C-alpha cells in the first residue's frame, strides 16, 4: 500500500475558487484561466502515490505548483478539490486539533531558506518539534544533541542560526526535522539555496541517512540532476499539471512531451542510466562472434558511467547479471552508443 496518496487535487488561488473549478475541470489551462478570471491555477488534477520508504522527487520550474503540492500533504494549504490520504487517513477530514496532532506525529518539513528560528540557539531549534510535543526539557535536549552529533555540528549547540554558514544551517534544518522521528519527511527545495559543492555534499548525506532510516521522503527541486540523483521516483510538474511520473531512467529514455525533453536534453546520462536499462536481453543477443576472454560480469544496477572507459578501451563485452549471478543481458559499445544518442 502506498504511504501517501494524492487523488485528483485541484488548487485555485483567488477570491472565488469554487466558481472557477468547473472551468478548470473542463480543461482550461493556466494562462486562459488567469486571463479570463484573474485566478491562479496552482494544481490541476494531480494524482500521485508515494510508497513507504522511497524518495519521491517532485520536479518543475518555479510556478509549476511543486511547493503548493508539498504543502497539501501536511495541509498547510487546503485544496479546492481532491483527496489527500496519508497512512490510510484522509487528511482533509481532520479537524483543527487533529491536524496539529497529525503534523506533530507523522511528518516534518525542511525549507528552502531553512526556516530556522533566529531567536533560538541551534539546540533549541533542533528541539523545537519536541518542545511543541511537550517532551520534558532534559529528554528533548538529549535527543536534540544526538541529532546535532549525527549531522556533524558538535560544538555549535549554543550559537544562533545567523552565526552559521548556509550549509550548516540546512543541516540544522535537517536535524530539526529528524528530531521528532517522523515517518515522512517533506523537503521543499531543501538544497536549492546552497552552493554546488555543499549541495552535493548534502545530497550524499541525505542518501546515507536514508539508507539507515528508510523514511518516506517527498523532495522538491527545480534541478533535474538533483532529482535523478536522489529520486526513486520522479514526478514532473508543468503549469500545475503532472506531466510525467516514473523512475529516473524512464524519464531520461522516454520523455513524455517536449517540456520534459527540454529538461532531459542537458543531462549527463552516464550518471543516470543503469546497465539493466541499456543492455540487450540475452535471448536477443548474438554471442557467437564474441571472444569469451573479453567478457566481464557486472551487476545490473551498475551505472554505465563506470563501464564506459573499459568497454571503449578494450572493446570488451559486459555480461549483465542479477544479484544471484544469472545472466540477464549483454552490453557492448553498440548498446552504449545507442543509449547515449537516443532522442
Amino acid at each position, binding site marked *: 500500500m502506498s504511504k501517501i496518496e494524492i487523488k485528483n487535487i485541484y488548487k485555485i488561488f483567488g477570491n472565488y475558487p469554487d466558481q472557477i473549478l468547473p472551468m478548470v475541470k473542463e480543461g482550461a489551462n493556466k494562462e486562459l484561466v488567469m486571463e479570463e478570471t484573474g485566478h491562479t491555477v496552482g494544481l490541476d488534477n494531480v494524482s500521485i502515490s508515494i510508497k513507504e520508504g522511497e524518495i519521491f522527487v517532485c520536479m518543475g520550474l518555479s510556478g509549476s505548483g511543486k511547493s503548493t503540492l508539498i504543502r497539501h500533504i501536511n495541509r498547510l494549504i487546503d485544496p479546492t478539490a481532491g483527496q489527500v490520504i496519508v497512512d490510510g487517513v484522509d487528511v482533509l477530514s481532520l479537524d483543527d486539533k487533529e491536524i496539529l496532532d497529525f503534523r506533530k506525529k507523522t511528518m516534518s518539513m525542511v525549507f528552502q531558506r531553512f526556516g530556522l528560528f533566529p531567536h533560538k540557539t541551534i539546540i533549541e531549534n533542533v528541539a523545537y*518539534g519536541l518542545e511543541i510535543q511537550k517532551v520534558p526539557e532534559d529528554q528533548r535536549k538529549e535527543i536534540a544533541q544526538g541529532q546535532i552529533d549525527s549531522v556533524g555540528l558538535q560544538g555549535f549547540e549554543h550559537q*544562533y542560526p545567523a552565526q552559521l554558514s548556509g550549509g550548516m544551517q540546512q543541516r540544522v534544518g535537517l536535524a530539526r526535522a529528524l528530531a521528532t522521528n517522523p515517518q515522512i519527511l517533506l523537503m521543499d527545495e531543501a538544497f536549492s539555496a546552497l552552493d554546488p559543492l555543499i549541495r552535493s555534499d548534502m545530497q550524499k548525506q541525505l542518501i546515507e541517512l536514508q539508507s539507515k532510516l528508510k523514511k518516506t521522503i517527498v523532495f522538491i527541486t527545480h534541478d533535474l540532476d538533483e532529482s535523478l540523483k536522489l529520486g526513486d521516483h520522479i514526478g514532473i510538474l508543468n503549469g500545475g499539471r503532472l506531466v510525467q511520473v516514473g523512475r529516473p531512467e524512464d524519464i531520461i529514455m522516454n520523455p513524455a512531451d517536449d517540456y520534459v525533453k527540454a529538461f532531459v536534453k542537458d543531462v549527463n546520462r552516464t550518471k543516470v542510466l543503469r546497465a539493466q536499462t541499456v543492455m540487450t536481453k540475452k535471448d536477443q543477443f548474438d554471442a557467437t562472434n564474441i571472444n569469451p576472454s573479453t567478457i566481464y560480469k557486472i551487476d545490473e544496477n551498475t551505472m554505465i558511467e563506470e563501464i564506459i572507459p573499459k568497454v571503449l578501451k578494450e572493446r570488451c563485452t559486459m555480461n549483465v547479471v542479477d544479484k544471484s549471478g544469472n545472466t540477464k543481458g549483454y552490453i557492448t559499445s553498440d548498446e552504449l552508443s545507442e543509449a547515449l544518442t537516443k532522442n
Partner: protein
Amino acid sequence: MIKKLLTYLAIPVIFIWLLITSFKASRWKPDNANELLSDFSWLNDWPKWLDIPLMKWINDWFKFFNEEYGIYFEIVNNFLLGAILSLKKFLVFLPWPLVIALVVAIVFFSSGRKVGTTVFVGICTFFIGFLHPKFWDKAIETTSIMLIGILICVLFGIPLGIIMSRSRKVRNAILPVLDLMQTIPSFCYLIPGIMLFGLGAVPAIIATVIYAIPPLVRLTDLGIRLVDIEVIEAAEAFGASRRQKLLGVQLPLALPNIMQGINQCTMMALAMVVIASMIGTRGLGDEVLLGLQQLNVGKATEAGLAIVLLAIVLDRITQAYGEKIQDRNKPLDKFNEKAKMKKAAKKQVTKESTKDGMEAAVKTN
C-alpha cells in the same frame, strides 16, 4: 456582490438624510424649500442652513454621558491617581543617590553590560537634579505620570497590535482610528478629559495614552506581520497551535519592533508633558510653562534641558534592550570567547587549589 451594492446604496442615503436633518435643524433656513429653486443667491456664499449640527450633537451626547456614567470615570480617576501618587511618593521617599544607582543598574543590565552607555545615562540622570534642585522631585513626578501612561499603552496597545496583525478586517477598522488619534489636536481631548476626570494628572495620562499609543499599536502589528513566512510555516509544520506560534515565535521575533514602539511611545509621552502642564499637571512641563509666563528665558531653557535629559535616559533604557536582541546576529567573537574560557579555567584552578589548601589545612589541624 450584494454587500457591495448595499454599501454603494447606503452612502447616498446617509448623505441625503444628513442634508435633510441639517436643513431642518438650522435656524436660518428659508420658510419654504421651493424658494431655493427660484432664488439662486445661496450659490454665492456658503448658505447658513447647509451646516451639520455636529457641535450640538456632541455637546448633548457629552452632557448625557457625563451625567449618566460620571461615576465610572470617578472610579477610574481615583484608581489612576492612587497609582501615580504611590509611585511618586515611593520614588521621592528614596534618597536621590539611590534612585540614580537604580537607573544605572537598570541600564547596565538591559544594555547587556555596556559600560559606555551606562556611564552616560548615569551622568544624564545626575544632571537633571544638578540643573536645579527643584527639578529632581518634578522629574520624578513627570516620570511617574509617564510610567503609568506607558504601562496602560503597553497593556492595551500590544494586544490591539496582535489582533490587528491577525485580521485584515480589524486592521482596516482600527487604522483610521489611529490616524485620528495622531492627527487630532491634543486640546480636543484634553478639555473633555478635564470635564470627565477633573484637573491634574489623570487627564494628562489619558491624553498621553491617546497620543502615544498609535505608534506602539502600529509597530506591534507590523513587527508580527514582518516575521519571515517560512519561519511561521516551520512552526506550523511541527504542529504548533496558534498560541504556541504567537508566544514562541511571532512575539519574540517581533520584539525589536515592539521595543521600538515602546521607545516611540515614551518619546511621544514626554512631548505631551509640556502640553499637559497647561491643564494643571505638575512636573517638569510646569516649569517650562512658568518660565514662559514670566518671560524668564533661562528658567524655561533650564526646564527644557531637564526634559531632554529625562528623554535621553528613558530612550537609552528602552533602546538598549532592542539593541541587545540584535546582537545575536553578529558573528562570534572568537578571541573574546577564548579569553573568557581561559579566565574561567584559571578561576576554577585557583578555586580548586584554595579548596585543596583549606582541606589540607583542616587535615593538619
